């Protein structure tokens, strides 16, 4: 892939990610959670594209499978279970909006200032790292074996917890 094409694709995916991310949190046309969920899917796809540009192919695939597949299906099921009509009747509170804008402006300003002052990555050599599956798997099952096993226990705990929470009454 030529350098110019990669740059173009970066701007394309970055714009997709940020625009859809903005539409998830503040959509001027619809306050329906389903619309937010759909735009979250597009955000995830944009992020997966950025991962591919960063040569993290395995993570791009996992991102689409886990987020756009599993997590979004969960979200849509729960939206289906809840009452949607109520959201559109509520008016937006001005205090929350102002507080949100102020804190977001502050934290984004801090991030930008830190980036501009340190300029990370300026002296680094051109990246050669390839995030293909084999080296990642090797690392996962050697150096990170214990965290990997702990995560499997965490998933088991989550499964049991969800079943317990979903039961109508606990005897």
């Amino acid at each position, binding site marked *: 892939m030529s350098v110019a094409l990669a740059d173009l694709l970066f701007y394309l995916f970055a714009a997709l990610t940020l625009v859809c991310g903005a539409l998830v*949190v503040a959509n001027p046309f619809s306050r329906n959670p389903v619309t937010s969920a759909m735009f979250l899917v597009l955000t995830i796809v944009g992020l997966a594209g950025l991962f591919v540009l960063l040569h993290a192919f395995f993570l791009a695939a996992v991102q689409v499978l*886990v987020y756009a597949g599993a997590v979004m299906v969960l979200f849509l099921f729960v939206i289906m279970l809840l009452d949607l009509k109520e959201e559109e009747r509520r008016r937006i509170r001005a205090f929350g909006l102002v507080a949100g804008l102020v804190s977001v402006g502050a934290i984004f300003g801090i991030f930008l200032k830190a980036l501009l002052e340190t300029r990370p990555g300026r002296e680094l050599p051109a990246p050669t790292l390839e995030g293909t599956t084999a080296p990642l798997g090797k690392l996962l099952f050697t150096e990170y074996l214990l965290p990997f096993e702990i995560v499997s226990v965490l*998933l088991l705990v989550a499964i049991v917890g969800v079943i317990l929470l979903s039961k109508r009454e606990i005897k």
Partner: protein
Amino acid sequence: MTVGLEHYLVVSAALFALGLFGVIARRNLLILYMSLELMLNAANLALVAFSRFNQSLNGQVMVFFVITVAAAEVAVGLALIVALYRTRRTAHVEDLTTLKL
């Protein structure tokens, strides 16, 4: 100007800021949850970018764990929201004022 580490970090910071705005400004529990996911994904993007430009795969392993934990977190959180909705018939943070003095 070729795309470097800074570009990815700016995108990551902007995405994080969007997620934070959603958590503070919105009142629907589900949209709050989606905003949380946005923030987690912003952190993931920063980690992958650092991993690529630092010539080390450790960042990507970290992202792998973050994705796993986020999936577990979403499952438990959504189950909590459903359980909450069953007892209180609401998914709005404004209606959940039991702990308010």
